[in-house]
Structure formats: C-alpha cells, structure tokens
C-alpha cells in the first residue's frame, strides 16, 4: 500500500521531464515559452496560470512592466490611475516596496530562470538521456544559443534598471539563493556571451525569433551605455557595431526602413519583422488577436492608451482604459507636418495639470490595431485584442545611435547627418543641411520624436545626464507640475524589498 503514495500527475496539461523522450516537439514548445515570456503573461492568454504571482497578471507582463518603468518617469508619458505604486512612478517617488518595480525585477529573473532551465534541460548529457541525437540534437544546440541570447537580453534590462543584481546561470541549483554581482562584471559577462553565440544566430531568422540583427543591436546598446554601466565609454565599439548592422540590413531604396512610419505600429507590422527590404524591425515581440493574447504588450499601448472622446473603433479596437497618455513636452517637440505626430486632442488639454485626469494631456495613437491597407477605411475592424507587434529594436534606432556616437566624437558626422536625414525624410519634414544643425541635444530630441513610447526613454535620458538634473524638466518630474530636479539615486531603481528579504546579503542601491 505504501506504493500508493507514488502518485504522478494525471492532469493532461502537466508534462513531466520524462515525457520529452517520446515527444520531441516539446523542446520546440519549451523554446517557444522562452520567447513567449516576453509576449504573454501566463499559460492561458489573455490571463490565467500566470508566470508572476501575487500581482495583477496583465500588469506583470514583461513588455508592459518594462514600458512602465522606462516611460512613466520620463518626459514621454503619464499615467493617472489609482493603482498601488502607479502615481509614484510618474512623480519619481518610488521606494523599494513599489509593486511595479518588484514585478519588473521578478519578470526579468523569471525570464532568466526560464532560459537557465532550458539550458539545463538541453545539455548534451540531458539530450542523450532522452535518446536525442543527430539532426535534432544539432537543432536543439542552436536553440540553446537563442536561449542564451534571450538571457543576455533580460540581464541587460536588469543592469540597466537595477545596477548590481543577482547573478544566476544554468550551473546553479533550484532554490539556491544566487549571489549579487556588480553591474560591470555582468556587463562583461554579457559581451562574452554575445560573442560566444554570434555564429549560431542566423542573419535572417524566422519571424518571431532572434537573429544576428537582434544580437548586434543588443551589443550596440551595451556599448552605447557602457559609460553608465561601467564608467568606461565604448562609443567607438558602438559605432562600428552600428555600421555592421547598417551594412547588413540598411540597403535598398529605403535604406532598410519601412516606407511609412505609422505602419510600423499597426496590426500588420509583422511585415517589417520578416526581413527583406523594409525589414526595419530587428527584434520583435509578436502579438495575434486570437493566438497571442495579453493585457500587457500592445494591448496596453492601444486599448490601454485610448480614452476620453476617442472612437476606439477608428483605431481597430473596441475598448479603452484611459491609461497612459502624453506629456506636453512630447507633443510640443514635433514641428508641423511631422508624420510621426500621432495624438488625439479632442476634449483634451495639452497641459498635464491634473495628473489623475486622462484628458489633461493628449492621447497617443502611435500604436493602432488598423491594417495598413484599410487605414482610412470607414468600415471598422474592431477587436478586443490587437494583432500589433511590439518592435524591440528598429533600424531607425541604429541610425540614431550611430549619429550619437559620431557627435560624441567616435564617428563620421557627415554620415550621421545622412542617417538622421533618412528618418526626417520619411517623417516628411525638413532635412538637416549642415552637420552643425545637429547637436547632442538635438539628437536626444530626435530620438524622442522617432522612438517615443517604444521603451527607450529612461535609458536615453540617463545617458544624456538629464534624467535627474534640474536642467531639463517636464510635468510632474519630482512630484510637482512644473517639474524639479531629483536626487541622483533615482538613476537606478531600488532592489525590491522582497528580494532583500528573500536573499540575505543582497546590497540595496545607494540612497534607498
């Protein structure tokens, strides 16, 4: 009778390690989850069996929590909801107890643990145990490189937002508390990792997966922000990596860019993430209204961002949450005729006087769920979830990164001007005529116009030294409408209080 205790799960949705032996497709489905960790919030879609426990599932989705931390404290976005921890993000008053910070930290490390778990399950020994050899073993070893890339990608977020963080790899045991490592050490680890797997990633990966373009962009991002991460600038390495990317992907009549800016953020924007002449999106988080559903991701940037008197059906959806909206800085940065200007202003006030009022600020309509073909159609296509993919890295950003390196003294300013003019031409506004038209401040402003609401802003403002300083202000910076300077501690988020409690010996960031 004691044998009766050796029960195994009978739920057909629960899979055991040993089942992989007879179901080789499970390895691919496992890798799909490693990617899907960025796209959805759990196993049911849009909600249910969440990856992250103890928090609203939609808010704990990777892109949404990353977006919140990268955009809400900046000059691009405001959010007036009463949710616990939200006002503190817009007013830069967060503490280590802030739930959104905890959720981001948890998300990043869930993703890292997922990658590590994949790597553990696919070592040559583990594969041999499950009788996997030959072509399949070869294919899975390529999968491993993708998992390592995705791990590096999340570690980049970790050091960018939190500085010194827990360091854990596939060599650590489950439930074993990892040790904290310095930002610089992890930075070096990431460069080594990217170099080690570079040859395994294809130039033109399948839609939804990462290739060399994504890898090089991550590398370029690391170099670009190296002085923030390690104290040692690496702009020249950044410039040459950008050149490598442009050399590979920047050819054709549009220099590798999508012809029409707004189509990059609409329902069929997957066309720009499948390579080819307009393959501007170098890394993508895909969404599908039926198959890849979430309350985070682009649902948050379409439905979430619609409200007031907007007719949501004009943007391809049938609901609006009156969530994030623009700051006046963002709206005012555009000159007339800039096709990148995408705001809805009816009934709204351009100024952000009342933080809690959605209509104190313009709604942002950059992300839509319209098809590029029926843009001006009157027949409405309205769905509760969008098909719109989220672009993680775009070639346009590569051009701007190169320009920034050049103006920091590590590249060709004429070439920089040419690159920036690609973007301004597409936007339908005047081009720069002389290299002296361009300054670093101008590049920062152009980055906002080109890349707003794509999750880059906090990192950019910090690199330019204006995230906390009093020299550049926006509404509600520091908790006042006119804006004020912040303590420099806010350049990093605190290590969440829950992590400090769970992992003895973890050092809190300075000032928290």
């Amino acid at each position, binding site marked *: 009778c004691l044998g009766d205790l050796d029960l195994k799960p009978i739920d057909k949705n629960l899979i055991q390690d040993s089942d992989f032996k007879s179901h080789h497709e499970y390895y691919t489905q496992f890798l799909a989850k490693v990617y899907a960790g960025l796209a959805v919030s759990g196993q049911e879609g849009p909600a249910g069996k969440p990856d992250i426990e*103890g928090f609203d599932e939609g808010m704990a989705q990777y892109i949404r929590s990353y977006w919140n931390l990268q955009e809400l404290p900046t000059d691009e976005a405001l959010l007036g909801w*009463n949710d616990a921890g939200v006002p503190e993000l817009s007013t830069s008053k967060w*503490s280590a107890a802030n739930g959104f910070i905890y959720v981001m930290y948890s998300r990043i490390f869930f993703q890292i643990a*997922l990658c590590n778990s994949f790597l553990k*399950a696919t070592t040559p020994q583990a594969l041999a145990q499950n009788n996997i050899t030959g072509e399949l073993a070869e294919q899975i070893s390529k999968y491993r490189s993708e998992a390592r890339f995705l791990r590096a990608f999340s570690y980049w977020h970790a050091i960018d937002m939190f500085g010194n963080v827990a360091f854990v790899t596939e060599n650590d045991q489950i439930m074993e508390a990892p040790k904290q490592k310095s930002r610089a050490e992890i930075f070096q680890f990431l460069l080594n990792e990217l170099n080690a797997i570079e040859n395994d990633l294809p130039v033109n990966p399948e839609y939804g997966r990462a290739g060399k373009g994504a890898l090089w962009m991550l590398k370029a991002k690391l170099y670009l922000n190296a002085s923030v991460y390690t104290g040692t600038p690496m702009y020249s390495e950044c410039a040459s990596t950008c050149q490598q990317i442009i050399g590979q992907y920047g050819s054709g009549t549009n220099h590798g860019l999508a012809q029409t800016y707004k189509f990059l953020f609409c329902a069929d924007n997957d066309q720009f993430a499948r390579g080819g002449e307009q393959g501007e999106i170098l890394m993508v988080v895909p969404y599908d209204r039926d198959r890849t559903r*979430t309350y985070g991701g682009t649902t948050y940037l379409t439905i979430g961002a619609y409200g007031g*008197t907007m007719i949501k059906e004009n943007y391809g959806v049938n609901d609006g949450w009156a969530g994030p909206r623009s700051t006046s800085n963002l709206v005012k940065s555009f000159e007339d005729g800039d096709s990148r200007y995408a705001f809805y202003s009816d009934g709204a006030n351009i100024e952000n006087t009342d933080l809690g009022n959605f209509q104190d600020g313009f709604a942002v309509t950059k992300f839509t769920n319209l098809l590029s073909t029926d843009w001006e159609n009157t027949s409405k296509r*309205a769905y*509760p979830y969008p098909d719109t993919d989220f672009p993680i890295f775009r070639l346009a950003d590569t051009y701007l990164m190169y320009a920034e390196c050049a103006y920091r003294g590590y590249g060709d300013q004429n070439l920089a001007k040419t690159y920036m003019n690609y973007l301004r031409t597409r936007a339908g506004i005047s081009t720069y005529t002389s290299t002296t038209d361009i300054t670093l401040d101008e590049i920062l402003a152009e980055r906002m116009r080109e890349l707003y609401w794509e999750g880059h802003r906090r990192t950019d403002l910090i690199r330019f030294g204006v995230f906390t300083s009093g020299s550049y202000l926006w509404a509600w910076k520091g908790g006042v409408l006119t804006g004020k300077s912040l303590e420099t501690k806010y350049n990093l988020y605190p290590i969440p209080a829950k992590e*400090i409690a769970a992992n003895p010996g973890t050092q809190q960031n300075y000032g928290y």
Partner: protein
Amino acid sequence: QRIKVHGNVKDSYGEPVVGANVIVKGTTSGTVTDIDGNYQIEAPKDSTLIFSFVGYISQSIPIKNRAEISVILEEDVITLGEVVAIGYGTVKKSDATGAVTQVKPDEINKGMATSAQDLLVGQTPGVVVTLTGGKPEAGGEIRIRGGSSLNATNDPLIVIDGVPVDNSGVTGMSNPLSMIPPDNIESFTILKDASATAIYGSRASNGVIIITTKKGMSGKPQINFNANMSVSTSRRTTGVLNADEFRRLIAEQTGTSSQAYQLLGNANTNWQDEVLRTTVSSDYNLSVGGQYKILPYRVSATFTNQNGILKTSSMNRTTASISLTPKFFNNTLSVNMNVKGLYIRNEFPDEAAIGGAVSFDPTQPVKVPGQEIGNGYFMWLQQNTGAVIGIAPLNPVSLLDDRSMISHVYRSLGNIQLDYIMPFLPELRANLNLGYDVSKSRQWNKMFPNSPITYKENKKLGIGQTETLKQLKRNQLLDFYLNYNNDFRQIYSKVEVMAGYSWQKFYKDGSTITTLMPDNEPWYDKTYADHLQLLSFFGRINYTFKDTYLLTFTLRGDATSRFSKDHRWGTFPALALGWKIINEPFMQPVANVMNELKLRLGYGITGQQDISDNYFPYMPLYSMGFPTASYPFGDRYYNTLRPNGYDPNIKWEETTTWNIGLDFAFLDNRISGSFDYYYRETNDLISRIPVPAGSNLTNEIYTNIGSLRNEGVEFSISSKPIVTNKFIWDLGFNIAYNSNKITKLNKSNDADYYIPVGGISGGTGNTVQAHKVGYPAFSYLLYEQVYDKDGNPIEGLYVDRNGDGVIDEADKRLYKSRDPKVVMSFTSRMEYKNFDFGFSLRANLGNYVYDNVQSNNSSYSAIYNSAGYLNNLISRGTKFQNPQYMSDYYLHNAGFLRCDNITLGYTWNELVQNKLKLRLYGAVQNPFVITKYKGLDPEVFSGIDNNVYPRPVTFLLGVIITY
C-alpha cells in the same frame, strides 16, 4: 465458604452481552462473559457480584448462596449521552483528557438552522463561526482558536460519521456542510487541543469537528416532522445620495454647463431597492426511526427552499439519508451503515450587483424604452457614437436579470463500519470503516446575447456565451483499527490500547467549456484532474489509575503524496494527563456539592499539508499553454511549455500545542463549566513567499518558512438558576480570548519585511493589510490620518512617522487586526409550563474593519469619468477630492453585540392519546446588532467591508410534530 456461580448476561433485547465484567464486590477477582454471554466464577457465598459493561447500567446482585445468577443489563442512556467521539473511538466525557467539547443541536433552537454551521455559532468558546453574508446556502468560516497557518488552509478537519471530508469546495455548492441537514445531526464533537486532535495528525492543526448523525433507536417507530416558513428582508441598506442630491452635487462640483451635467438623467432610481427583495423560504424535514426485528434504522428526507434577498439568488436542496445499525452474532458484530444523498440546485446572483447598486447613478432608469443595445437595460454609451463605454460600470439590475448562473450538484456520502468483538478475547475489538464521498456537479453560467455584460467581457461584441462547468470529486476511505480494553482491578488500572491504519484517496477532475450563444459555437475548453493519497498509522493508549489519574498518549505517522519520498512522512505525537481531583479522598467533604473537578494537561504536535490546488509542489513539471497564449516561429504557432516553480524539499507544517484546562460542576450539575489556557506555535509554516530572484521558475512559492503563535484562554459556564416542575431556566455563557502573533517570516529576518495582503476594491493591487513579524496576522498597514481642529480629516495629510519630511511607504503604521481579541456568547432559555422562550447574543471585541465601501465611494473625483459616465457617492462621504485608500480614517473598531435569534414556542405533549407531541414556534433571526461601526454590518471575516451580501432579518414560523 466459596461456591461456583454461573449464569448469563443479556441486554434488554434478549441478546447476549459479550465481554461484560463480572466482579466480586470488594475484591480484585472477576471474569468476563463469553461469546454467548455466559460466565462462571468462584465467590464467597454471601458476597455480591457486580455486572458491568460499557454503555450499560451496572448491577450489584448479592449471591445469597445461589449457583445461577442471570441478569439483564439496561442500556445506560445517561452514560451514553456522556460518551464523546474522539476519533477512532469514544471516551466517557468524564475521562476525556483533551480540550473536547460536545454540542448537541437538540439542546439549541430546534428546527431553525438551515446549515450545520448555524448550529455551531456561539456554542463553545474558541470556535468562531463567521457566516459568509446572507446568501442562501451560505457557508461559514470556522476558526478554532484562531488560524494556525498563513497560507495553508485554516479550516478545521470535518469528520462525518467517521469519514473525513474534503474541505475544498465543490463546484456549484458553496458550503461543504450543506450535505448534512441540521435536523439529522446527533452531535458535534469539537476537538480543540493537540492532545485530542493529534489522532488525526496531518490534518488536525486547525482542530477537528466530528459530526455524528442520528441513528435508529429501539422500540416502535418514531416519526418526526418539522416544517418552517420564513420571511427575510434586508436589515438596512447603504445610505447613498438620492437623484436630486446627486444632481445638486454634480452641479456644485462641475457646473451646469459641464459634460458631466449633460450626462445626468431624469429618473429617480433607488438601485438598492431594485436589486434587493423580501423573500419567503421554507424547510421541511421528515424522519422515521425505530427498529425492525434486529435492524435499528433511521430514514430521513428534507427539502429546503431558500431564497436570498438579492434577487435571483436561491437554493433548493433535497436530501435523503438512511442509517442502519444492526448487530449480529450475539452482538459481537456491530454494523453501522450510513448513506446520505443530496441534490442541490443553486442559483447564484452576480454579487457585483451589490456594490454596483451603491454607486450607480440614481438619475438613470433601469430600462430605456426603445434602446436595442443591452436588451434595453440602461448602459453608459458614448454621447457622440452610441458605442459602449467599456470601462463604465454596468447596470446592476442587468447583472441579475440578464445573466444566469445555475448549478446542479449530486453528492453522496456514506460509510459502513464493522465493529467486531473477538470471541476468543472479548477485550479486543476490530473495527473496519469503509467510506466514500462522491459529488458530481454541473454549472451553467450564461451571459445572454446582447446583455450589457457581453459588451464588457471577453469578446466585447454583444455575443452571448455559456460557460459549462463540470466536476467529479471522489474521496475514498479505509480505516482499520484494533482496540483492546481491560480493567486490571488488582492494580486499580484501566487500560485501553488502540492501533490502526488509514488509507484515504482524493480524486477530482473537471472542465470548463465555453460556447457562444445562441449557436453553441465552441470557444474554449479548460480541463483539470488531480489526485492525492494520504496514508497513516496511528495508535492511542489510555491509562487510568484508580479512576483518578488519566494518561493518554497518541502517535500518528502520516504520509502524503503531496511531498517527495524524502519528506512525505511526518510523525505527530501527543500526550495528555488528567487528574480527576473530585475522586481524591480529600475531596470527600465537598462531595455532596461538587460533582466534577478535573484538571487536564495536554501537549501535542499536529501537521498541515493542505495547500490549495497544488498537488505536486515538489515535482518539476511543465504546464501546457493554451492556444490563446501561443507563440509563432515563422507562421507556425506553438502551444508553449512552461516549467513551473517547485520546491523539492517542501514538507509538513508543524504545530505544537500546550493546553491546560479545568472542568468543574457543582450543585447537582446545576452549574458546570470549564476553563482552558492554550499556547500554540506553528513552525515551518507552509508560506507562499518571494523566492530569491532567479532561484526558481516563479517569483513566489510555497515553502516551509516562518512561525506563528496563538495564545489564548477560554471559559465557559452553564447554569440552571431555576429548576421547578413548572419553570426551568437555562443560561449559558462563554468567552474566549486569542492573541495571534507572527514570529518569523523569511530567511534574512529582515525586520522591515512584510507581506502585503488584503486587496481592496479601488485601483489595482492596493492592499490594506500585512503580515509582519511581531504583529498579528492580517494587521492593517495604513497611513495615520491628520485631522483639522474640528476633527475633520485633511485630505492627503498623514503623520510623518519617521520624521524624514517625506510621506512614503515607511510612514505607514501597522495597526490593529481583523481578528477579534475577545469573542463572547450568551444564551438563555426558559420553559414555563408548555411555553419556551430563548435568545442568544454574541459579541466580538477588538476586531477592526476597513470600510472599503466608504473609501471607494466618497471622493468627488469619482463622480465623473471623462470616458463619459457618472458614479454616485454614499451619504457618509469624506469630502475628499481624490480617493485616499491608504488613510486609516477608514479603519474602524467593529466590535459588536449581535442578537442571533429570539424564539418563542409552545408545546402540546399529550395529543392523540399521548402519542403525538407538537410544538409551534416563532423566531426572529438577526433582529439587531449594536455597534459603533457605520457600515452595513460589522461582522466581516476578511476585515475589508466591500460588497458583502447583506445578512437579512428573518422571521420564522415553524412546527415540529413527533409521533
């Protein structure tokens, strides 16, 4: 001169009594009867023989030189009444060494309760029953001496006729005890301390409630019929602004040319009146009990129809039960067979209508003539397009009328218990108990096509849907034990030894199938299946010396399939000592006034493994994703495979309890009572805590960490101040104090660490309670409100507790708890001639409630949303501009005194030639509550007052007929 005496011992049915003791009075020599009830003994010819057997009245018969003496032993009804079930056996109440209380529902207000929980309310100190609002088929949260766990269940183990039942819910049935109609309950035994509960080892940390149902009695059939009819109505409603007041407020706050003002309607709707109602319910119970030849039987059937005061809520329950208790082979084999069946049909309302009715705009009508969308129910639509505003609240009436949630549950619980006295050794009994509990549920949740909610949920396109929930649950049990019971008179000792084995398996599976209406087009399916195995070995030794010194030792080894091979066994010992001081020679002088005086001392360890829905928390498993959460590689979408978090080393939670108690009775038992002190510490709490980042495949996991302490005193007293042949007065009072404190929560012992709990309505993720070391569980964590000189709260101004000039998380104060410190109850019952009159009162002290109704419905910014809708405010508003959820202004002392019921009855004892007994009674349930708390009802289990289904006042008229 010694002679040989022989004879036969029979019971009143003429059956031999096997194993009866035959003792020569004043000596240690004796014998026991054999399988035919015969005995033989040598004794002095002028001595006296004493015949005794458990459950029978002893007889002393002088030999007077006779060679044959046969006796008939009468069942000792009084002694039987004092026998209490203690798990795998019974014990005479006076010999119990643990904190054990027996509650007999017949002693309470007959016929009024519709659920078993009702019968326990206020009956014994240390048992707090919070009925979950006023909904039909309401379950109740039962807590015995406070909770011993933070995350694992805190429900006591419930054992019905020897079958431990699964506490976790059954789909379509909100109360696991619905199974047992109160009329069928013979007794509850509540095991409170570990020395009593440890025999149930792994599941006993939160106490055990043993329910014994009524059995057939000897004699001619007795027919019992109860019926009652009741009318329920709401006691009070939440004060809100009426339509005119609301119009005035909108004008004041936004001006008459504002968009908000344009949204106002012309109606004058009292939404609470629209969703609430006064209803009639009825309850019938028929039972027949008696003995047919050798077969004592009892059959009963009940029908209950209960309608809730929230429209569309109702419960229809039919139960049937059969109990057979024959004895075979000269009474050596006792069979106890019980089968219970239940069919229940519940109609659940969408309870969001309760909160919705408080805040919905009173100037809008329930229905808009000619409006097609939303089936004519008023909905918030965009002014310019007529499109639905997705984030606007829904018409509360439509939530009730335009969707339906109906369940049908069939459940059966049964067991057969065989108790066999070994013919070769009558002191030894073997007991086998086979039991089952099976339920099958179906529930249909429908959103009708074009109903308002179909524009807010799921596809948001006005498409109706049917959700079909199916569930099968099965719980099988096998218990076997041997019991050896002997009197060693030579050494003044009684010994009882019991050892046994238990096997219990739980299984469940189910599905949720969602289809679209009206064409039943499939949309999505979810399925689940789980099982759990428990195995146990257990034993108990009861030793009594000189009927004065008692010792009980129990040991249980428990294993669960929930933990890994290395951690699945747990050992749970307990020791209890009792001292019947009353039997000491030095008590002789007071023996005529004092009836009982017993000191009890107990120690024991119990366990816990019941962690919600996680059946394999130690195992690395992958969960298969749904097609709606799939991921594309190229154009092919893959259902994803996620490795789940797990703790390979998860093990038993252990609770250690100390108990000291004193039982007393004097003046012919006219006054009796008991006093208990306990100290209970739970270690290796199975808590859901954050894991170090990256160390597991989740951010929070169930693992063994943390400690919790409960300490308390309990006192109960009952008395009969007046007993004459015309007038009897019974009084009962009990009081319990419990203090709960968390002593450890995490590995780093970080003093600032806390776990936020207690989510509220308003914003997402806002919590108002926390667990923190050094404080009671579920303490409130809020800012300390600052008040102006007139005592009004100043919006957004809080005490800077750490004095750093900034108001942030660090300034929140951990203060008070949801749990009452002191719980009291008082019952009185008078009988004068044929009249009876009784009432019961109950009080909780020191419990605090966060008034979420107030914090969420009283700020001016809430009245208008720029998406194009309005919200009403409650009358006891705060005049705040914006919601201030984190202010302790909303935290209130919710101590209360509640009258649970008042009953008046009249009984005719001698109708139809003395054969018929009839009682007519009337009762009021929940007539009044005295409290300073301003919300609807201060009794809120979670401590967060928000959308609680209001408890009605019920007027009841009933009849009981016994034939």
